């Protein structure tokens, strides 16, 4: 396809394709298989288009824009523009959306009620389309339009199994929180556009529109709005409820891509849209980012529901993105373009990396849930035998999310560390201390993540099956394995050749105001172009060393005279069974004890004895973490609102006399008003 033509019609064409796909799907609703293939096929087609557009923009460096639709009645024009930044997020979206769609073709068949397939399929399309429009919107109304549409579509997908109370609740929570966020955005955008006298992003986000306190206020509004979507603590409470409730492939999309919509907003508006950031902004972002990272991984660590766990780790990664962006903003405040560029690059790279491995992990989780019919870690075990491929891919994902070298997770964390250290190096004064602090906390985060995913993989895939469901687990069909294979491969690929990513980023960074992309990266390696040659890494080269090590180990250990002997594991005298295995909660117990202050766990042990207290029949033990934010922030808030509402009931207590009284009061009041004024 001719590049120019692509640039011109790419986005609208994608939208049209999606619309057609939705229409056909709904028409074919009765014929389940057909509608499924139409919906997902259409989605794949559209994603391919958008990815093509995105890549051509990234290469060309010039943005592709146009008018999508003019609302005749209100005269409002919805226009789009694929700037390099949008292109980056679009590409990430497509990179995940295409495999997910392929995966879903097989997955929906098993895991979505036939009656709902058409519905879910079209919602899938609408959601993706909306996210694409969010990334490409170039005026307020378009953005809010897409934003709201995205929320609604996602909410419907979350409520797919609306018979369960939990998913209803999740959908509602998600809807409410993101709607409040949208309200904030609406306010911010409208104030901004009123000040700019125009509703188009280029003129609104030129950065010279607002000043002083209004600017800070507007920033706050935007930050709230986008932080809710990005799942930044303390606005994250919806995320662990909503992401698991959706069908797994959709959860994959939500966790890996949807939250980046919030990050996109933070980039587009908060960081680069309101002028040079004030000191407070960067501090807010990096502080809350750090908190999210720690909190997210800590909560993830204690989860026993696989999908919930992944959702919490999403919060962690969102925190890392925010941290990088915050560092970049601080650098811009101190006018260190090079540093700002680096930090922004770290954040953007993490957007991609996180999308890849989180998508992979959620797809894997989907396969596991489909294979076993449960989401509880304690019910898994020994899955590696039954589902070898899923296991392998999941392992790759786990290692990558744990930030281990040679995999992509390492790269973005590496970049973030660089940014933080360079930040300390270049910023004068006392405020520099926050850099090494967040660095240390980042280190803690990644180590905890490693612990967390050792637990996840070990408990669910290794040792003995802990339930008949796990024992009878079955491997997923190829259509579901291929996407995972692709994503796993890209985990490794991006890990070994990060230069590719950074090259892709160069045009994005060049397009952002206040940044100064220098020779940040070179083929196959990363390099700090900073005052002092700080550090560099060539994963491929080190990979060879590691390979050498493995080779040595192999040579050393295979030269045994005797064959290998297989024996049952020693079960401490008794015979070994799943009941004696180490459980997930036991695994995370030490950390729970260490971080009591944050978890505030409650435990109750009751021993049931028959004959005498010394001969215990059974011991019941239950322990749970206190949902801090739900209990101390959102609960009271909700109660307050409802309390006010209930209090106002008396206004409409059914007494006609009172009603007439209102009119009397109004009449007297207005009469006096008139008399005073006239």
């Amino acid at each position, binding site marked *: 396809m001719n590049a120019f033509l692509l640039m011109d019609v790419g986005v609208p064409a994608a939208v049209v394709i999606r619309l057609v796909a939705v229409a056909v799907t709904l028409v074919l609703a009765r014929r389940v298989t057909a509608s499924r293939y139409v919906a997902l096929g259409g989605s794949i087609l559209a994603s391919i288009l958008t990815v093509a557009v995105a890549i051509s923009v990234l290469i060309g460096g010039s943005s592709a824009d146009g008018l999508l639709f003019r609302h005749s009645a209100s005269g409002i024009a919805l226009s789009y523009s694929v700037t390099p930044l949008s292109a980056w997020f679009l590409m990430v979206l497509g990179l995940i959306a295409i495999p997910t769609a392929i995966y879903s073709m097989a997955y929906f068949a098993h895991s979505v009620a036939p009656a709902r397939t058409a519905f879910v399929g079209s919602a899938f399309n609408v959601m993706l389309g909306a996210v694409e429009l969010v990334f490409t919107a170039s005026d307020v109304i378009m953005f809010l339009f897409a934003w709201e549409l995205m929320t609604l579509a996602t909410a419907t997908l979350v409520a797919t199994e609306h018979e369960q109370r939990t998913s209803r609740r999740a959908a509602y929570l998600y809807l409410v929180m993101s709607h409040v966020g949208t309200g904030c955005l609406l306010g911010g955008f409208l104030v901004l556009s009123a000040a700019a006298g125009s509703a188009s992003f280029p003129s609104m986000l030129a950065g010279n529109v607002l000043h002083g306190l209004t600017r800070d206020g507007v920033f706050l509004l935007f930050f709230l709005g986008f932080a809710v979507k990005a799942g930044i603590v303390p606005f994250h409470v919806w995320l662990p409820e909503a992401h698991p409730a959706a069908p797994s492939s959709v959860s994959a999309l939500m966790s890996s891509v949807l939250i980046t919509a919030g990050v996109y907003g933070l980039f587009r508006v908060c960081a680069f849209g309101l002028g040079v950031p004030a000191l407070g902004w960067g501090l807010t972002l990096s502080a809350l980012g750090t908190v999210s990272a720690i909190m997210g991984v800590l909560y993830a660590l204690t989860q026993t529901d696989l999908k919930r766990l992944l959702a919490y780790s999403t919060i962690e990664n969102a925190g890392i993105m925010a941290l990088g962006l915050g560092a970049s903003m601080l650098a811009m405040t101190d006018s260190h373009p090079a540093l700002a560029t680096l930090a922004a690059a770290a954040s953007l790279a993490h957007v991609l990396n996180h999308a890849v491995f989180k998508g992979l992990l959620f797809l894997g989780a989907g396969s596991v849930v489909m294979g076993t019919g449960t989401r509880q870690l304690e019910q898994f075990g020994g899955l590696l035998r039954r589902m070898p491929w899923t296991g392998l891919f999941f392992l790759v994902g786990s290692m990558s999310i744990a930030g281990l070298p040679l995999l992509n997770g390492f790269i973005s964390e590496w970049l973030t560390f660089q940014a933080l250290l360079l930040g300390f190096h270049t910023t004068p004064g006392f405020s520099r201390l926050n850099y090494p602090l967040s660095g*240390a906390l980042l280190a803690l985060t990644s180590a905890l993540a490693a612990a967390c995913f050792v637990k996840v993989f070990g408990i669910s895939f290794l040792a003995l099956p802990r339930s008949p469901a796990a024992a009878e687990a079955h491997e997923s069909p190829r259509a579901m394995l291929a996407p995972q294979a692709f994503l796993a491969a890209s985990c490794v690929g991006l890990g070994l050749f990060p230069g590719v990513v950074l090259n892709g980023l160069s045009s994005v960074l060049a397009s952002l105001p206040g940044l100064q992309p220098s020779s940040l990266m070179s083929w*196959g390696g990363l390099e700090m172009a900073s005052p002092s040659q*700080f550090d560099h890494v060539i*994963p491929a080269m080190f990979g060879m060393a590691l390979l050498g090590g493995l080779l040595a180990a*192999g040579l050393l250990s295979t030269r045994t005279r005797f064959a290998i002997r297989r024996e*049952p594991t020693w079960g*401490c005298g008794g015979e*070994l069974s799943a009941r004696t*295995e180490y459980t997930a909660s036991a*695994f995370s117990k030490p950390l729970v004890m260490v971080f009591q202050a944050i978890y505030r766990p409650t435990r109750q042990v009751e021993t049931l004895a028959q004959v005498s207290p010394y001969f215990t029949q059974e011991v019941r033990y239950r322990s749970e973490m206190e949902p801090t934010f739900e209990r101390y922030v959102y609960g009271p808030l909700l109660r307050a609102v409802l309390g006010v509402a209930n209090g106002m009931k008396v206004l409409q207590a059914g007494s006609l006399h009172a009603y007439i009284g209102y009119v009397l009061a109004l009449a007297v009041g207005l009469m006096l008003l008139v008399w005073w004024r006239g």
Partner: protein
Amino acid sequence: MIPTILEGVRAFGLAILQAVLMLTLAPLLKTLIKMMKARLQNRQGPPLLQGYYDLAKLFRKEAVRSETASWVFVAGPRVYFAAAVSATALIPVLISAAPLEVAGGILLLVGTLALGRFALATAALDTGSAFGGMGSSRDMTIAALAEPALMLGLFTSALAAGTLNLGALVRHALAQGVTFHPSDVLAFAGLFIIVIAETGRVPVDNPATHLELTMIHEAMLLEYSGPDLALVEWASAVKELLYLTLLVDLFMPFGMATGTAPLALVVSLLAWAFKVFVLAIAVTATESMNAKLRLFRVPELVSISLGLAFLALTIRFL
């Protein structure tokens, strides 16, 4: 910054030589510490070469593996070994340059060691025995707690030198000559604690014990035997030597050869050996003078080191 082929070949050659050096000396260090400990307790202690004997023995023995275990169980020790060995290529030992320093610096080093830990901890869960789980859980816990302190300690020196690359760092230190800054002491103390924790020494862990409730590292190895066990033991020995060398590089790199002149190499070999020996004495002293801490007291220890590192940072840069 991309190495040419020739540079690459040279780098890998050096890396191999250095790895071999470390591999050969690591068991010696382990036994040395054992021996010194024994002597402090008025025991005879093992002969210096005991480490080698053990390894040789283990390599000759057959490997007994659990029926429930999968390929992860087998892969674990090998990755652990590979990580430890390849990590040696990232730190300067005799020459003031890490063989593979183009490939990465401190962060890569830490990451690699984390990779090894990840592999071993995962593999330990594979046999289904409770001990494996216990060991891996505790090991990951302590590692997680140690990580920030380690990073912070490393950052202090790295920021002083303005680089995260160990080679550059050492060269910077050498160029500066013998300087002393009070923060060095704090940073060193902090890092030393971490090294103790990471290498599974008393008071954090007791390599000598196999008592269910106390063992951490050993609990992970409980199901391993023969060559598998040998690999793990050897790798952890190398890891220990690596950590001590790291301390040496960061705080007392004097006498290290700047080139490949034979004489300088010999000198730097002797210097290195001496410094490691001193550190080994320190480790032995800590081991003999402390009792093992309860697991839940370890965070306090680690937080002390964290505090030290942060203090070092502040007094260094403010």
